């Protein structure tokens, strides 16, 4: 049992972090923050999850979102995918373990992983539409979002969704508003089995280590922590019974990293592109300075006249 966070005081209190704690801001720079907040993390233990969707309900409730009435797609996933309203969904996978021939029901709560190296933020062209705090939370600032969908291309986990209503991108905030008040995310609060716990990243790793040890003692030899190094680690981590094959959990990427295409687009192309344009303009300017205009001479006009008259007279 991980000790749950105490309920907050009912007295007004100051926000625990804010704009002064930004370490990254999309399409702009921020001064290095004066203090370094302890890194936070949410740990999702797939081995404890019972698939009740209390986390989904809590997420809708806390964020004051309403999902459209959907359709039964023949599986437990409801809704079938992340949406601008459903910032988290439970993904159910039926997997036959080839070693034991047992059917295993793998349930993974999907949502933003809060990457240490966020691809969405790297791809975003709108200054301040995506920010990262020194505690690791990656947040979308909707008033700055222009709805271009570049974050979707940057994300290695296929998380952001653009609303067809207001054309803004939506994803899990890690309940940054609750965390700022010393609380954990709504999903963690609602989880009846403590499959979702929240704390500092160090605490979460310790807690995960104990869970993994327990799973290994129960025969899950490959139990482990999912904290993928390809994106610098994440601030949402999973305990997986089969950490050697994350893809069996509804396609959780094996080794997620920002796509090299995105790196190329937001890296060398951005700088080489403007340089090329400037170079073409500069060469034109220099050429004109050096060679002067190419003017039609009087002789050219006389020649044209002669040609025309020779044929028309």
């Amino acid at each position: 049992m991980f000790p749950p966070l105490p309920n907050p005081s009912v007295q007004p209190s100051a926000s625990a972090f804010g704009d002064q704690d930004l370490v990254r801001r999309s399409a702009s720079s921020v001064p290095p923050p004066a203090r370094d907040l302890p890194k936070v993390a949410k740990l999702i233990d797939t081995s404890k999850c019972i698939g009740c969707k209390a986390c989904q309900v809590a997420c809708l409730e806390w964020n004051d979102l309403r999902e459209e009435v959907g359709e039964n797609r023949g599986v437990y996933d409801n809704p079938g995918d992340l949406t601008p309203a459903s910032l988290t969904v439970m993904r159910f996978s039926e997997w036959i373990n080839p070693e034991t021939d047992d059917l295993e029901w793998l349930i993974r709560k999907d949502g933003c992983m809060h990457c240490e190296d966020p691809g969405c933020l790297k791809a975003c062209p709108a200054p301040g539409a995506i920010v990262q705090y020194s505690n690791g939370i990656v947040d979308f600032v909707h008033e700055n979002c222009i709805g271009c969908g570049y974050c979707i291309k940057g994300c290695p986990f296929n998380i952001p969704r653009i609303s067809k209503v207001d054309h803004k991108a939506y994803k899990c905030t890690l309940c940054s508003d609750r965390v700022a008040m010393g609380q954990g995310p709504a999903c963690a609060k609602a989880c009846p089995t403590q499959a979702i716990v929240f704390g500092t990243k160090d605490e979460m790793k310790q807690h995960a280590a104990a869970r993994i040890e327990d799973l290994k003692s129960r025969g899950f030899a490959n139990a482990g922590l999912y904290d993928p190094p390809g994106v610098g680690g994440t601030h949402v981590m999973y305990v997986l019974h089969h950490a050697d094959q994350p893809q069996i959990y509804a396609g959780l990427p094996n080794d997620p990293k920002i796509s090299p295409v995105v790196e190329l687009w937001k890296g060398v192309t951005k700088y080489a592109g403007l340089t090329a344009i400037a170079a073409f303009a500069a060469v034109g300017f220099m050429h004109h300075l050096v060679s002067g205009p190419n003017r039609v001479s009087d002789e050219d006009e006389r020649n044209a006249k002669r040609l025309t008259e020779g044929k028309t007279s």
Partner: protein
Amino acid sequence: MSAHEIRPGEKVHPGDPVIVDRYTTAARINHWITAASLVLLAISGLALFHPVLYFLTSLFGGGSNTRAIHPWIGVVLFLGFFGLFLRFWKANLWKREDGTWMARLYDVLTAHDEKLPEVGKYNAGQKMVFWMMSILIIILILSGLVLWDQYFFEYTSIEQKRIAVLVHAIAAITIICVWIVHVYAAIWVRGTIPAMVRGHVTGGWAWRHHRKWLRELVSGKRG
């Protein structure tokens, strides 16, 4: 008899100076709609390409509006250029003298026009601009549709969108560079801009830069 016509809007008016009609009114309107679209697309596209240029979104009423308008201007550009393509493609087919012209690019740039072969309505440089624009606009409209999330999000995968956004950016930079060549050449070669503004050039200009074309018009035959 005072004039010869070889293509629509091409006429030689003898006089002092000789005046040569080069573009019809329709062709010029078509050109300037396309030109305005390309400039607006470059500004709005660059604004979303590099953060230092993001302030340009204010010309379009902010980032969201820039994002929404850009693809529509792209449609106008595509249709506009398609019109230009239908008008000009034949005159831009590669001819034997074009290779010679390209090989003497040094003489072109040093304005030694007397060392260049006589060329028709377009020289090799203009033809390359034409074909580069044609190819790049096809690449841009196709990759642009992949990125037009509002209407076409469902039709492609995220990986395809990533490739499209890179291709779109590279093609856009290339077409801006081609556009710089196009505009600079029009400025450097004096007497060119009136062709697209008023529709006509002087006989001397045609003699100096497109002598084969002038000869065709005067003789009334296509070379």
